[in-house]
């Protein structure tokens, strides 16, 4: 059933077109052209007209089209289904590097997606469970990465020693951020956390003596597997992985090892979250998200509850950061810009706040797909934006927003 065409629809579409025009004019309308006489300004107003026209027609279509068909109602045993889907995805992830079509490129991309899944699961504790809108999550990721890089280069500590230390340091920063913002909620909290994220980045950029400033830190130590190195020639006193198992050296071994490392870290994050949701702390987080005043009237101290959420979320970001540093071998402040925070938050919101498997799907969609469509070059961001708009139209509360109770009468779920 088409909806009625009327003046209101037309006005709505015209307004959308106007906004698109205002945005497109500076971004598409003018272009600097490198000519013989130097830089000149060229107008591309046809592109602006296209943008306005497209948005106008699109908006009109959305107004007039019948409402998007609702997804079939989730079956009553959806919890079971979700559990099965979770195991299935974990199984696929486990055998992925050994599948016939898996090449180095695929494993690399999967590693990247897994980093974001882990970050999403970490942020989910703060945003999805405790309901504290955090726009500066990347700061803890940066703290983790720099902690590992600096500890390993200054004191020569191994990755496995640094990993928990980096997590602790990040959790400490989480507490440091948590204290001043305890009284803030919603938008105000978001702005302060945004500022915190930028402060960390600016410090990393300018504290030349320690962080190397914009040049970053390079030559970061790669991790070893129980003392087995993944280098072609093992360093003094170590044995290489290939030599130990008597196989030929290949650089792919390290890539696959890193993949399994992040898989293990991410699954540990997931297991922790699933478990803690059923414990008093986890339930207190969710209760705090629902109603802080009621929490206080029930004897729950909101200070400790909020701080524990900030600290634990930050800790997982710290682990992910350490992994990022060891995988790249090089870090600089450029990797920890606001857009990273935004992408992680988008993953959590899109997945359906609080849903673990929703985050996996959202990370695949937001990080995986753009990586795949790199050939589309600058248009992939356009596709990314379009996909976001579609999802918000279709499922405004996230891909999987269904929440299963953490305890049932007469047996745990």
């Amino acid at each position: 059933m088409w909806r009625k065409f009327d003046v209101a629809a037309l006005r709505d579409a015209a307004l959308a077109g106007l906004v698109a025009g205002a945005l497109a004019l500076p971004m598409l309308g003018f272009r600097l052209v490198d000519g013989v006489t130097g830089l000149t300004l060229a107008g591309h107003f046809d592109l602006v007209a296209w943008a306005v026209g497209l948005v106008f027609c699109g908006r009109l279509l959305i107004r007039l089209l019948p409402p998007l068909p609702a997804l079939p109602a989730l079956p009553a045993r959806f919890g079971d289904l979700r559990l099965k889907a979770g195991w299935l995805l974990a199984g696929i992830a486990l055998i992925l590097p050994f599948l016939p079509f898996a090449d180095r490129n695929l494993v690399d991309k999967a590693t990247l997606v897994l980093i974001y899944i882990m970050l999403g699961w970490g942020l989910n504790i703060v945003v999805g469970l405790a309901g504290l809108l955090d726009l500066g999550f990347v700061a803890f990721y940066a703290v983790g990465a720099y902690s590992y890089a600096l500890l390993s280069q200054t004191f020569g500590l191994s990755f496995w020693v640094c990993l928990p230390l980096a997590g602790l340091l990040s959790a400490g920063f989480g507490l440091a951020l948590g204290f001043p913002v305890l009284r803030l909620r919603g938008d105000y909290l978001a702005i302060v956390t945004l500022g915190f994220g930028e402060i960390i980045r600016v410090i990393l950029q300018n504290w030349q003596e320690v962080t190397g400033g914009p040049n970053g830190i390079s030559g970061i130590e790669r991790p070893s597997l129980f003392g087995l190195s993944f280098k072609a020639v093992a360093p003094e006193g170590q044995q290489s992985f290939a030599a130990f198992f008597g196989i030929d050296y290949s650089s792919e071994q390290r890539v696959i090892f890193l993949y399994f490392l992040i898989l293990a870290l991410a699954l540990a994050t997931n297991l922790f979250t699933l478990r803690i949701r059923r414990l008093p702390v986890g339930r207190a987080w969710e209760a705090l998200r629902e109603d802080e005043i009621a929490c206080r009237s029930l004897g729950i101290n909101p200070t400790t509850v909020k701080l524990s959420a900030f600290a634990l979320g930050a800790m997982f970001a710290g682990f992910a950061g350490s992994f990022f540093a060891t995988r790249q071998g090089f870090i600089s402040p450029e990797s920890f810009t606001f857009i990273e925070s935004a992408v992680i938050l988008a993953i959590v919101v899109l997945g359906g706040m609080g849903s673990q498997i929703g985050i996996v799907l959202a990370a695949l969609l937001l990080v995986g797909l753009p990586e795949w469509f790199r050939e589309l070059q600058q248009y992939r961001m356009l596709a990314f934006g379009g996909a976001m708009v579609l999802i918000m139209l279709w499922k405004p509360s996230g891909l999987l927003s269904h929440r299963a109770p953490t305890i049932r009468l007469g047996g745990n779920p």
Partner: protein
Amino acid sequence: MSEPPASGEALLDVDHVTMRFGGLFAVNDLSFSARSRQITAVIGPNGAGKTTLFNCITGFYKPQVGRLTLHHPQGPLLLERLDDHVISRRARVARTFQNIRLFARMSVLENLIVAQHTALMAASAFSLAGLLGLHRYRDAERRAVAKARHWLDRMALTGLADEAAGSLPYGHQRRLEIARAMCTDPLLLCLDEPAAGLNPRESAELNRLLRSIRDQDGIGLLLIEHDMSVVMEISDHVVVLDYGKKIAEGNPAEVKRDPAVIRAYLGEPDDADLPPEPTGSASC
């Protein structure tokens, strides 16, 4: 857990409490006591300071003047010196809210389990024992579920235990909020307009429930209520406020006859010299 004090003992003493917001005296030099095993009702016209009083008792506001003493079995506690969440935990004062504050997206059972946070937190050693799946925590959780079950049965909500609290009908949400408050093992239960929005049948049900809490659980109840059928039927003691001041106190029958109360509710004639109308005020 210590037993609540015996019947009729003073449970809460409100002494000369004043709560000011700028120049407005929301509660002005108010004194009264609530006793255990009794239902004390606080009534008064809109804006009389009833909810402000509740917020002072439960620690959400700190009165500028006066003292709030709770006679805990382990010695008196001064509520105005405690933080709101400590009042629930240590002084064992629980409350409900005028506009229901349930954890809407959590299930009914989860709401009742969250209310037992303090006990579960201690049993789980700040969740560490729970994280490792130790018996100690599982036993504590089983006890918590049993207690929740007890209150679900009493509130006739057992069949809805796994539903989201926000999806329940209004009357059920009111009952759930009382159940949640009771799961904290209170000595004093403060109910802020528990009958608001209930139909007569639900209201009668509520009366029965509040009486059973008074008689079976032996705790003190303090309630704010507009519904006079509830107040007059179940209260043992009524305190009437107007503009933050206490204008009358006594048992329901006394309060109903008090001229000051009638004036506060129905207003005074414009000209005090005129003789009172022959009809009207007597009918209330």
